[in-house]
C-alpha cells in the first residue's frame, strides 16, 4: 500500500483536488470548475449557509486538510459570512497548494470558472508528479455507516463489517462507528465494552443526549423504508447497526473533527450539544460520511439493505449489500454481496475477510463501485458541539 505524505505526518490513499464553495451562491461556479476535469479526482465540497458557524468552519478546515486531499481551491461569492481568510490560512499552514477566488472580484461566473480551471490544471499536473510513499495498515482510519437499513442489515452486512473491523484493528488501524442516535437501546452494551468505566459513563451520556434530542424533534432516526424492510422500532434498528462495531474494546468517544490519536475502535458522537437547534442532527447519510471524513476516515464501509447508491467526495465508499434480493436488483452499485450469508452461500467470517481485503485493495488504489460511477455526494449543515470530556480519549504516551 502506498500513500501521499502530508506535512502533519498523515498519509492519503488518494491525491484529490478539492474545489470548495463557501456559500451556496458560489456552488455553481465551483461545480463548473470541477466539471472541467472528469475522472481526474477533482471533487466539490462546500458550506451552504451565509451565517457563520464554528462547527461549519472546523468541518471545512478538517475536510480541506484531509489526508486524501492534495490541493484546495476555495470559491467565494464575496459577501458571505464564512471566514474565507481563516480557512485559507489553515490550508496554507498544512503545506497544501491553495488558492481563493472571489467571484465578485474576478469578473463574475465565466471569468472565475476560467481562472479556477487554469489553477486546477496546474495543481493536477503538480500533484500527479508526486511520488507516493509506503503506507501501513496502522496508518489507516476507516469509518462505517449504514443507510437504507432493513431486517437483513443487522444479520449479514453489519456483523460482517464488524468482523472486518476486528481484523483491521488487530493490525493497528483506527476504526470509527456511529451514529449515536441509531444506537439507542445499545448504550449499556457499549459501556460494558469501554476500556475504562469513565469512558463507559461518557458513552451512556452521549446516547441519553441523542434520545432527548430526537424526542424533542418528534421522531427517531427511522425512515419509512426501514419499516418496509421489516424493522419495527428504533431500538431494533439500533441493535442491527450496533453489529457494525464488531467485538473489539471501545477505546474512545470522539466528536466530528476529532482525529483518533491511536488505533482501535472509536464511537463518533454526532448529536449536537446544548439546546436543540438547527433541526435534525444529520439530515441524511452523506452528512454522516462528511463527519467521519472530518475525523480522518480514508474510506468508509457502508452497509445497505434497501439499496443506497451514494458515494462521497474525498473518501471512497465501499458498499456492502445486506439483502440478496437488493443485490440482484442493484449489483452494479454494490461492492460486496453479503446477502449470500442469508442464503447459506457464505458465512460471516468469510465475508468479513472479503471486506477487509477489499479495504486494503481500495486503500492501494482500486476504485469502489460508487467511485467508478462518479458518485461524489457531499452535504454539510449547521451544528454546534462542545469539546469532548477528559475521559473520552485513550492516553497517548
Amino acid at each position: 500500500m502506498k500513500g501521499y505524505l502530508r506535512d502533519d505526518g498523515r498519509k492519503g490513499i488518494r491525491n484529490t483536488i478539492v474545489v470548495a464553495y463557501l456559500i451556496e451562491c458560489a456552488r455553481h461556479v465551483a461545480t463548473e470548475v470541477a466539471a472541467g476535469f472528469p475522472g481526474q479526482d477533482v471533487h466539490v465540497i462546500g458550506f451552504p449557509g451565509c451565517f457563520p458557524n464554528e462547527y461549519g468552519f472546523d468541518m471545512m478546515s478538517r475536510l480541506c486538510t484531509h489526508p486524501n486531499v492534495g490541493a484546495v481551491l476555495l470559491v467565494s461569492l464575496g459577501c458571505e459570512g464564512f471566514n474565507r481568510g481563516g480557512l485559507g490560512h489553515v490550508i496554507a499552514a498544512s503545506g497544501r497548494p491553495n488558492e481563493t477566488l472571489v467571484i465578485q472580484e474576478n469578473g463574475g461566473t465565466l471569468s472565475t470558472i476560467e481562472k479556477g480551471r487554469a489553477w486546477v490544471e496546474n495543481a493536477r499536473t503538480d500533484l500527479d508528479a508526486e511520488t507516493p510513499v509506503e503506507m501501513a495498515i496502522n496508518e489507516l482510519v476507516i469509518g462505517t455507516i449504514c443507510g437504507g437499513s432493513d431486517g437483513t442489515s443487522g444479520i449479514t452486512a453489519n456483523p460482517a463489517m464488524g468482523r472486518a473491523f476486528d481484523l483491521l484493528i488487530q493490525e493497528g488501524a483506527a476504526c470509527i462507528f456511529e451514529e449515536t442516535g441509531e444506537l439507542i437501546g445499545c448504550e449499556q452494551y457499549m459501556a460494558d465494552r469501554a476500556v475504562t468505566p469513565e469512558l463507559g459513563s461518557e458513552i451512556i451520556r452521549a446516547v441519553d443526549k441523542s434520545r432527548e434530542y430526537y424526542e424533542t424533534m418528534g421522531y427517531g432516526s427511522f425512515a419509512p423504508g426501514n419499516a418496509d424492510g421489516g424493522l419495527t422500532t428504533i431500538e431494533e434498528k439500533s441493535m442491527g447497526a450496533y453489529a457494525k462495531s464488531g467485538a473489539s474494546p471501545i477505546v474512545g468517544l470522539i466528536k466530528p473533527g476529532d482525529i483518533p490519536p491511536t488505533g482501535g475502535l472509536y464511537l463518533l458522537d454526532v448529536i449536537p450539544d446544548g439546546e436543540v437547534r438547527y433541526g435534525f442532527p444529520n439530515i441524511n447519510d452523506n452528512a454522516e460520511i462528511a463527519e467521519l471524513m472530518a475525523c480522518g476516515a480514508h474510506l468508509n464501509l457502508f452497509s445497505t439493505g434497501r439499496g443506497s447508491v451514494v458515494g462521497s467526495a474525498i473518501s471512497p465508499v465501499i458498499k456492502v449489500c445486506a439483502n440478496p434480493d437488493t443485490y440482484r436488483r442493484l449489483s452494479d452499485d454494490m461492492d460486496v454481496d453479503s446477502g449470500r450469508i442469508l442464503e447459506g452461500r457464505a458465512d460471516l467470517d468469510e465475508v468479513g475477510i472479503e471486506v477487509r481485503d477489499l479495504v486494503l485493495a481500495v486503500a492501494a488504489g482500486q476504485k469502489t463501485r460508487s467511485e467508478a460511477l462518479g458518485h461524489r455526494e457531499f452535504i454539510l449543515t449547521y451544528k454546534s458541539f462542545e469539546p469532548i470530556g477528559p475521559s473520552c480519549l485513550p492516553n497517548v504516551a
Partner: protein
Amino acid sequence: MASAERVTGVVLLGPDDNVVVTREDTVAGGSVEIDGKTYASDSVIPLGHKLARRDIAAGEKILKYGAPIGSATVDIAAGSHVHVQNVKSDYLHSHTTRPDEEVGV
C-alpha cells in the same frame, strides 16, 4: 415451484428470542417452519421481517438478538407477523408514511 409446498426458512438470532427472521419472502398458501412446527402463511411477508416464535402476550418485550427491541401492543399468536401493527418502541416513535397495516405487507 408449487407454492403450496413452499416452506420458508427462518433465522433464530438469540436462543431466548421470541421472534425469528424470515430468510426469504413467504408466499400466500405456503408455510413457515419455526422450531420444527409448521405454520400456514396466508400472505406475503418479505425477507428480513419477524415472526412470533411462540405466543406473545400484550405488554411482553419482543426479544431479538437476545435484546429487547420493543413491547407487544396486543396478544400475538405463534407464527404471526410481528411488526409495527402489534409492537411499539420503548424509546421513540417510528416514522412511517403509510397506515400501519399496509407497512411491508
